[in-house]
């Protein structure tokens, strides 16, 4: 019987060997795939197993990692001034994942980033508790607060940029929410309530919403006109008929009020009064290709990663000339994020050089070692410095003599442009009120702002960019320049 017993013993060894090979396959070859499987909750528990790094605004953290010593989760995220900073930080929830910087910078914040490997290994050897790194934002706490307070109960967004660097100084979206209410793993009610709120408080209007930019887009059209040599000076007269019939149609294009003197107005007076006819005709005369080329220099038709991705602003490839005419006054199919509108002012204020907007200045380890630092990059030379000078003069004139008087700040040079964007079926919905501006102090400080207010008033006549949005922009610029 011994021969078969020996064979059985080989068979038994083969069985165990098969188990060993299989286990090597699962735990060796496939290990990472199983460890990072989306259904593997260990990753989630790991994220909250040690203190998460913070998001820093003006040198102070706006986040916390609270030791809750839960059964599954040791730590829980909390936010300081959550609603104010939610569009900047995003949320990080035990039950609902994360978004915004909390998501994009998770490697640094949770400490799993490869660049923290050395630090983590050292911590492990010295017995220190692992701690995530910090993310230093470009947000200026004063500017952010001014913008958030000025928005109050209104629905809309504010973006403030440093034109010289592209740093995002304020990023406000209202109504907002406190990410702390959904940070835990038993916040289902709050999560449902936030998601079913018709005002969509969790949406980041500053980056993720595209609005019709309305008259603020006339800045792009005027820039295109100068860049293409259509005019030499801001006092050149345009050939604008009254009424202006949209090319190829029988439809006359209306101006906002019958009092405006738009017929054959100068560029300056056309922008002061925000004449639709003047800029629609300029756009139609330049044609869609030249208009689109200029718009794209300002950032339209590109995704902008701040690193939080901004929705693509659109200048369309209209099939018809009347479409292009309307696109050129920021209606029809033209769409822009508040960030994009701020970029237009920033490029003009920075003598035509558009800097890449950015939200994260530094990533650093828990021991404050800098892991990465943003280097300023030019997005494009949106226009020549000469054109930029003309555009600045035009915008100053709007604030001095035109629709933007509410944005005047004593002792500061302010240029701006209002917008009242029609939208909805047959433009029947209440229009959006826009204001975009820049301000410069004699000592070289500058700021560029875009404000959009979705629901400034119940009645149509009460809504204008100058009345609703300009005072908000003014408050933001004052905060930025310390005036």
């Amino acid at each position, binding site marked *: 019987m011994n021969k*078969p017993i020996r064979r059985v013993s080989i068979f038994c060894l083969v069985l*165990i060997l098969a188990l060993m090979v299989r286990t090597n396959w699962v735990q060796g070859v496939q*290990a990472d795939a199983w460890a990072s499987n989306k259904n593997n909750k260990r990753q989630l528990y790991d994220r909250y197993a040690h203190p998460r790094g913070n998001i820093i605004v003006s040198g102070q953290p706006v986040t916390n990692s609270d030791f809750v010593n839960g059964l599954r989760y040791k730590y829980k995220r909390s936010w300081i001034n959550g609603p104010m900073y939610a569009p900047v930080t995003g949320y990080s929830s035990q039950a609902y994942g994360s978004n915004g910087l909390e998501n994009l910078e998770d490697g640094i914040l949770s400490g799993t980033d490869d660049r923290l490997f050395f630090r983590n290994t050292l911590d492990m050897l010295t017995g220190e508790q692992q701690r995530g790194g910090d993310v230093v934002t470009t947000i200026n706490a004063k500017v952010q607060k001014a913008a958030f307070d000025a928005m109050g109960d209104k629905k809309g967004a504010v973006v403030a940029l440093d034109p010289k660097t592209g740093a995002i100084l304020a990023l406000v979206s209202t109504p907002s929410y406190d990410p702390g209410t959904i940070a835990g793993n038993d916040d289902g009610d709050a999560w449902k309530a936030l998601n079913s709120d018709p005002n969509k408080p969790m949406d980041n209007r500053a980056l993720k919403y595209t609005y019709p930019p309305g008259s603020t887009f006339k800045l792009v059209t005027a820039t295109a006109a100068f860049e293409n040599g259509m005019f030499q000076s801001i006092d050149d007269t345009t050939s604008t008929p009254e009424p202006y019939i949209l090319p190829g149609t029988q439809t006359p294009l209306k101006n906002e009020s019958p009092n405006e003197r738009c017929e054959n107005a100068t560029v300056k007076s056309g922008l002061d009064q925000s004449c639709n006819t003047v800029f629609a005709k300029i756009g139609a005369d330049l044609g869609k290709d030249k208009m689109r080329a200029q718009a794209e220099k300002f950032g339209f038709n590109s995704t902008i990663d701040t690193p939080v991705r901004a929705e693509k602003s659109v200048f369309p490839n209209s099939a018809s000339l009347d479409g292009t005419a309307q696109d050129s006054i920021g209606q029809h199919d033209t769409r822009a994020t508040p960030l994009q509108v701020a970029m237009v002012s920033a490029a003009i204020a920075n003598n035509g050089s558009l800097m890449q907007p950015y939200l994260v200045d530094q990533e650093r380890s828990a021991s404050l070692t800098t892991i990465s630092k943003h280097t300023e990059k030019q997005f494009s030379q949106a226009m020549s410095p000469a054109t930029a000078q003309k555009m600045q003069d035009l915008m100053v004139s709007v604030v001095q003599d035109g629709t933007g008087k509410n944005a005047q700040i004593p002792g500061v040079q302010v240029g701006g442009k209002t917008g009242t964007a029609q939208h909805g079926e047959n433009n029947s919905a209440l229009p959006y009120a826009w204001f975009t501006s820049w301000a410069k102090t004699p000592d070289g400080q500058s700021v560029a702002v875009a404000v959009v207010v979705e629901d400034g008033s119940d009645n149509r006549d009460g809504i204008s960019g100058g009345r609703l949005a300009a005072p908000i922009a003014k408050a933001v610029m004052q905060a930025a320049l310390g005036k």
Partner: protein
Amino acid sequence: MSSYDLSGDTGRAGGRRRAAAGRVVPRRRGNTTISPQGAPNRRNTELALLVFAVLLPILAYANVGLAMDSRLPAGMLGYGLGMGALALVAHLLVRRFAPYADPLMLPIATLLNGLGVVMIWRLDKAGHLLSGNFPAARNQLMWSALGITLFIGVMVFLKDHRVLQRYTYISMVVALVLLAAPAFFPARAEDFGAKIWIRMGSFSIQPGEFAKIVLTVFFAGYLMVKRDALALASRRFMGLYLPRGRDLGPIVVIWLLSLLILIFENDLGTSFLFFGLFVVMLYVATERTSWILFGLLMSVGGAVAVATTTSHVKVRIDAWLDPMAAFSANPPKGSTEQIGQSLMALGSGGVTGSGLGQGRSWLINFAAKSDFILGSFGEELGLTGLMAIFLLYALLVQRGLRTAVAARDPFGKLFAVGLASAMALQVFVVAGGVTGLIPLTGMTMPFLAQGGSSVVANWALVAILLKISDSARRPGVEPAPATEGQGGPAR
């Protein structure tokens, strides 16, 4: 006559000499010419290994306490002393009653049992995270003590394993009762339809574990008598020896019994184990490869037949092919996250593991302590730890099979082969299911897993193997009378 060597590998000689069937051969002390004087009995080796086997789980216990509470567990001393005392008593009685027994089996069983208790205790500590959980370490410890008591009982009272040969047919009846009984008890929801328990109030036993031993007694006794008829009376056909129709009887009966277990108790594991066990023993008894072929054909046929007629087997196979299906928005009916969770636990453990007390194998839920305890070990001790555990089982099985080779009587040989290969099959079926190698069948890992019946039965199994190895390696035993008649011809 060849001489006995020191390692106890007396296979060739043992194979030639057979005891008369059903009769206990009287032994006489003293040396014969074929035995070297003073053959080492390896008891001191066993003691040294045993110290290691007791210390290792105590260190693991301390490790869990430090990792989870940052201090040494309060019960450490008591646990250590308890385990140490039990192991020592077992060792002393082996020294007294089975002095020539294999020195490896007791330490391996002690080590596996101890590690299992530590892991169960560690999961108890995370108990609030497992639904349907109850603290089990204390019970497991109690069952281990009972198991070792039974081990001691076997040592003391089973003078010779051949006594069991007398109970061949009683064993058959007992085994049938044990196997059939669970079918008459309702299955709980969390058993996924498998009926493998007999429940009386809060007390439950898993009779399959005991049936494993009793059935091996029957198979060994029966095959010892019938092996010649089964081996010789056959026709050759295409290079294979085909058994006569009437000799096919026993294998068909066992096959049908396995199918009945599968159909009425939904117990794929037990069914497979018993059929596999029978085929292995049949092969060893008759040395006819054709039985293996028949066995394979019949198990595949049976599995296919049952899979196409009942849902249970199909569900298991589907869960094996796509373990993550249970996580989808619309999980298939009857599916369970367990296999997927187990694979994720293994993957997260990686090569070195998370360390004891630092894994999250409680995600596998309550089964992390029982059927899926290997997943828990895999996560916390990593690939390295699992390899070590598999090696321990391989060693235990190989020592059992070596005992079979060394055994001097055919009943002992068949009995040892049966017990050892039952252990191997069970380890393969359980670990294969947990690691996704084969469909999950729902059995317990011998010694490691939570479960009183399993621990007690496996301690008895090891005790019997030790007894057989003692008689096999004992020097100076008068060889059995060379009456080859009933035992079959020498081969």
